[in-house]
């Protein structure tokens, strides 16, 4: 299902299909979140923050950023 990252549920495997433009994209790529990569959604907090696991690394992404990242769940 094509959607945005903020819709991911705990335990989902999500494949990244699109990043927002500009500096944010650069920061995401540096942390290993690139288009085509499949990561695991460890948790989605009540505020909408998504916790991703990329191999052994854990990254927290705020809701406002997550809704601008397109994914396939």
């Amino acid at each position, binding site marked *: 299902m094509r959607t945005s990252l903020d819709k991911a549920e705990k335990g989902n495997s999500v494949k990244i299909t699109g990043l927002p433009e500009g500096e944010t994209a*650069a920061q995401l790529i*540096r942390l*290993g979140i690139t288009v085509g990569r499949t990561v695991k959604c460890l948790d989605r907090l*009540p505020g909408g923050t998504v916790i991703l696991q*990329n191999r052994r*690394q854990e*990254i*927290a992404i*705020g809701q406002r950023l997550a809704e601008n990242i397109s994914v396939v769940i």
Partner: protein
Amino acid sequence: MKNDRIISRLEGKSSSGADEYQKAAKVALAGNPNVGKSLFFNHFSGMYADVSNFPGTTVSVSSAKYKNYEIFDTPGIYGVSSFNEEERVAKKVIVNGDIILNIVNGFKLERDLFLTLQLIEMGKKVTLIVNFWDEIKRRNIFLDVEKLSELLGIEVITTSAVTKEGFDKLDYAIENAREGKIDDEVLSLIEKTVKKTGDKTDAVLILEGDSETAEKHGLEPGTPNDREMIYIGRRNRISEIIDQTERENTPKAEFANKLGRLALNPLTGIPILLVILTAVYFFIGDFVSQRVVNFTEIKIGKELFEYNVKSFVAGYAAAEVTVEIPGAERTDEKTFLFPKGMNARPDLKSEFETFSSKPDAVLHFQFNNPFVEIVFGEFGVVTMSITYLFFLLLPLVMGFYFVMALLEDSGYLPRLSTMLDKSLSRIGLNGKAIIPILLGFGCITMANITTRILGTNRERTIVTAILQFAIPCSAQLAVIAAMLSGLGAVPILIYITTMFILFVSLSTILDKLIPGESSPLLIDLPTMALPRMKNVLQKTWFRSYGFMREAGSWFVVGSLAVGIFKISGLLTAWQNLLEPVTVNWLKLPKEAANAFIMGIVRRDFGAAGLFDMNLTPEQVTVALITITVFVPCIASFVVMLKERGWKEGMTVWAGTWIAAFLVGGIVAQIII
């Protein structure tokens, strides 16, 4: 200032001693946050650098001589660029370094290799140091070091910095640093620009859109799309490298991981936070500020140190000593006059000694000579400064730094940021803002610099204002805790609620006033770890030492100023001037104005000035609220001006005057 000096030395601009430094090869330590760089720097320098399990501690560049090299420590970064102030600092050091020791967390190799490849592509001489090697072995991760070295084209050594395992290979690492393998695709991409710049370092930075470097060569920086393309290419190569070098047996969920996840979700995270806060309260509020300080301040400071100094001085100088003996029904009070000093009247002296030897006796020494009074009297430079500094503040400040160090090293703070993100974004901030704010409870001056980790200027402005208005620093909090803890729950609740309302309204108002919006949260969560006691104690010790060194001189200045004010009559004039505000509006005794003078010099000094006054619990509450909101100390005022500019700095400073009396007064009108 120190940073600028070190950086200009790096760039070879320094006038004095430039030759000496140009001979020594410059070795830069570079790596992501939390890879243990500072432990390596400690090894090279033989000195202590701040180490912690959260980003933002190495805000300044440290340098040290080691054998024939000059070693530079840098802030932790995920890549070389100019996204924030820390990165700009690190970039300068790396660009100008001859040799780069790139330290990576072997446990998070994939994340860390981004910087490694970037450094190699920039044509730097690099050696890769894979740290946390013991951890990798313990968790059954297999890493093919030889293959990694072959793929990258540079030496790779393995270390466990906390046990110093592998540190014997560090000399080898420096001596054998070399340029690594660069992908053909990258080479052809940068080829044209290299011809114009003359080296790969600047070429890569320009293509990645670094406008500072582009300007230097009069070239156009790459577009965000160019940068993204380069970044993605780099990430793809990293995936290939990881596939060829790393194998992991099924990872088991460890307790630390589970706890780390529980700390993120408000449902479990808030109870965890409450447990932590309760523990902190019992440690600081009960153990340190009651038991320890009662002993050090009263027994050692007042009864032993001050008594002996004052009675020794009174032996020679004209003095008036009042002795109060509190009894069940009435207080027994007697004043002894020694116009020529105690030693001139042995009979009266022994009578005084007998009378004052009763337990609970309270002594007041008043020296007739104004200079003696300034040095040894009630606000004496020698007497009061030393008691407050060493016997009141030091134990409390050490307690705070100890707690901060524990929290920092556990990896809890980025999780707290994540949990609070939603709430903080309602008041114009993002979760990261909690880090400078928490640090502010340690030292506002330091926290002013740490605001650099925030994404936008707007957030920096808001957090800087919050720090000066609503956050008491450890030294001030120490005195506040000591004064409030004897008074029961109500004053504490009023104090906390008032500060909280101020915090939220200030942030909300600034959020509305300043155009733009806060940057969304994107934070890398470090592995939770049990703090190492040695590191925690070392950090506590060094920060407390730094505090004492910094605070000491200001304390002397403050008490000297108050002493001079007092004997010259200016203190009374100031008290009278502020009397309408102090007495009518704040409903405090007019002597409370003294605390405001001291508060201009140091915030804790202001609170300490209230310590000995006879105030009702309500008055204590009002006085403490007022003094907390009141102006930041001189050191943090100066740093704020430097970081945020004159206009913003002065606005905040002036604003604290108004807010202090406004908020304090409103509370006074309600509760007194």
